[in-house]
């Protein structure tokens, strides 16, 4: 199986080994290629509804996943494909859910925005902006209730950061010292509204200050910086010090969803990001510069990923639609 999750126990130090970098490269590339393929399938009419791509933001989830350990949970919004791949969910099952087929993680009944894996402790995939934030704190509450040292990674965007329930959650998480990391994926645009047009204060990492929650701004395009911040935050949570906020400054290359013409920003702005700050190129450069990998090594990885994605896309088209009887199942346990 692809995309096996690295254990933080295996390498809990900040320093990146060759294996770490190769792993990050591979994981980020898997997400990138998966999302490109999803975009293609959408264009072919094989994926319907809303489809929010994670392209450009890969370093955030890959860096943070490298700091997790068994039993840690994650929950995110509707831009969720990257999170699922990074926590080890099967690309075939994810892609087949996008095409609405029985082989999908939700048997075709959830779609792009609503996917879950109990096995991988992935609690969605939520379509309502901000709603996953108290849910994440609830996962952390369960950890505390059970007396383990697991952490709930709760991802949301710069748009959700203005939601009222986020602050209700900050209050309770801090009051009860819940082991939750609030990861604000600040990709600069809440749909078509830029951060400065929607937020009274742009420094989202300070939004927990009123509740006594420490926060940190992180270069979300640099997977090593993400990992370093993640290690610090998980240590804070695992040792009973309560919640932590990480503002990941990142950028999505594609529109908000597939149906977004992206008129709110210039083509040049996107191009500049791609050329100068791409998270995958960054790791690729490190590997090559430091002679940790050859061009041939990287090509081999590219080839392997391409095969995985093609297999997933094929599976997502071959898997049958859910049986009509599935309409009536899973309403009640």
């Amino acid at each position, binding site marked *: 199986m692809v995309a096996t999750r690295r254990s933080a126990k295996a390498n809990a130090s900040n320093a990146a080994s060759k294996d770490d970098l190769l792993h990050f490269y591979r994981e980020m590339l898997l997400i990138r290629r998966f999302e490109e393929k999803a975009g293609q399938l959408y264009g072919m009419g094989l994926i319907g509804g809303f489809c929010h791509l994670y392209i450009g933001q890969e370093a955030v989830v890959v860096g943070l996943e490298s700091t997790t350990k068994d039993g840690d*949970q994650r929950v995110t919004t509707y831009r969720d494909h990257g999170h699922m791949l990074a926590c080890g969910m099967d690309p075939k099952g994810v892609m087949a859910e996008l095409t609405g087929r029985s082989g999908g993680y*939700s048997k075709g009944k959830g779609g792009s925005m609503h996917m*879950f894996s109990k096995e991988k402790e992935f609690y969605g995939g939520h379509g309502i902006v901000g709603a996953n934030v108290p849910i994440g704190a609830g996962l952390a509450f*369960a950890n505390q209730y059970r007396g383990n040292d697991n952490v709930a990674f709760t991802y949301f965007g710069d748009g959700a950061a203005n939601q009222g329930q986020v602050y*209700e*959650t900050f209050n309770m998480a801090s009051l009860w010292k819940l082991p939750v990391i609030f990861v604000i994926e600040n990709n600069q645009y809440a749909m078509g509204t830029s951060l400065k047009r929607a937020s009274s204060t742009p420094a989202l990492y300070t939004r927990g200050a009123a509740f006594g929650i420490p926060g940190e701004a992180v270069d979300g395009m640099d997977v090593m910086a993400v990992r370093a911040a993640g290690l610090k935050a998980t240590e804070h949570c695992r040792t009973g010090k309560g919640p932590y906020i990480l503002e990941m400054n990142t950028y999505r290359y594609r529109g908000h969803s597939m149906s977004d013409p992206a008129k709110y920003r210039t083509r040049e702005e996107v191009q500049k990001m791609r050329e100068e700050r791409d998270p995958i190129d960054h790791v690729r450069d490190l590997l090559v510069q430091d002679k940790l990998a050859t061009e041939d090594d990287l090509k081999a990885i590219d080839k392997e990923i391409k095969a995985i994605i093609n297999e997933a896309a094929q599976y997502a088209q071959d898997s049958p639609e859910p049986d009509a009887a599935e309409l009536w199942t*899973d309403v*009640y*346990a």
Partner: protein
Amino acid sequence: MATQILMPALSPTMEEGTLAKWLVKEGDSVTSGQIIAEIETDKATMEFEAVDEGTVGKILIDEGTEGVKVNTPIAVLLEEGEDASAAAAAPAAPAAEKPAAEAKAAPAPTAPAEAAAPKAAPEVPEGTKFRSQTVREALRDAMAEEMRRDGDVFLMGEEVAEYQGAYKISQGLLEEFGARRVIDTPITEHGFAGLAVGAAFAGLKPIVEFMTFNFALQAIDHIINSAAKTLYMSGGQMGSPMVFRGPNGAAARVAAQHSHDFAATYAQVPGLKVVQPYTAADAKGLLKSAIRDRNPVIVLENEILYGRSFDVPELDDFTVPIGKARIAREGSDLTIVSFGIGMTYALQAADELAKEGISAEVIDLRSLRPMDTETVIASVRKTNRCVTVEEGFPVCSIGSYLSSVLMEKAFDYLDAPVLNCTGKDVPMPYAANLEKLALVTTAEVIAACKAVTYR
């Protein structure tokens, strides 16, 4: 001139209480605002202040007296220069903020007898002993029993722990189960409901108490979008084994934003189960079933019913299945279908109709989703007439749904159109007379029953 001090009401729904303690004695002079007595109800103890200055001329009700009705004279206050002989002629002074009219508007404190009804619900074995309990005590016992049984069950909400519940439902739970499992939340329904859903996703079994379901509107996104839909959206991988409970519908004189009845609203949502008990036994049995259920269950309680007493079976583990109606009273001329506090009107109407020779069968739905329409259909096939009773709004109500079910499943058996008795199609007014008009009344139920029986 001497004035009477009347028994005060501590809450909009209080009908009687205990005069626990006098803090003054005859002959003492009191000032306005001075605490003169302690009054207790099953819900709370409150200090009672003098509303005027004067001398306590006579104490009319001894301390320790139970069951003192609101507005009963409890003492006489003399003005300067008056002596005790003036006490006898004292006119009544309104006590506290309670207008006298309201006491009359309040529903009868005791449940009407379920004459001609099987005493026990089908789930109670023959020979079972019963004891009288309030709905409030029954709900508390249900939670305590389930929390003893399953360590994953916990209670969270506003004032549930140290305050012992805003309506004293969680009395004693903090002491028995500790702060880990009985959790006071900030006043943030949206946030704590979502947090509880997350805990349920992780396998815990939260009981979320809303101080009233009116406030749960702030949390309705989590109740519906997060709790009710996740099992389906995850292809059956995970759901929300949890309970949302609290008082629903009108209390007394709390007006539009505190009186909304959400029975029909929640009953519409697939993925939710919805129950609304009337008796203490059903409150206990249904809440226990709800806590054990692997789905999100809405338990709609009623503030006015909290203090009413009913017979509750003395069984170690008494549960009532969700989705089963109860025939509260057998009859042959028509079927009255109701649930929750609506049963008060239904049973009162059945009593009155019996005096006129009309035999009404009364069905307590108990569960609204899934709804036991089979029991209703079977009854209507027998009686050929049906009246529904609820306090909620008329449009898309439980009654209108039942009407459509009966038209489809019992059309050839109906000898009259099904009539729906509901609350009026207006936000709840505050004024006592308007509030009375806005709610469904026993007289309206009787009139509807006579209409369908052509009497």
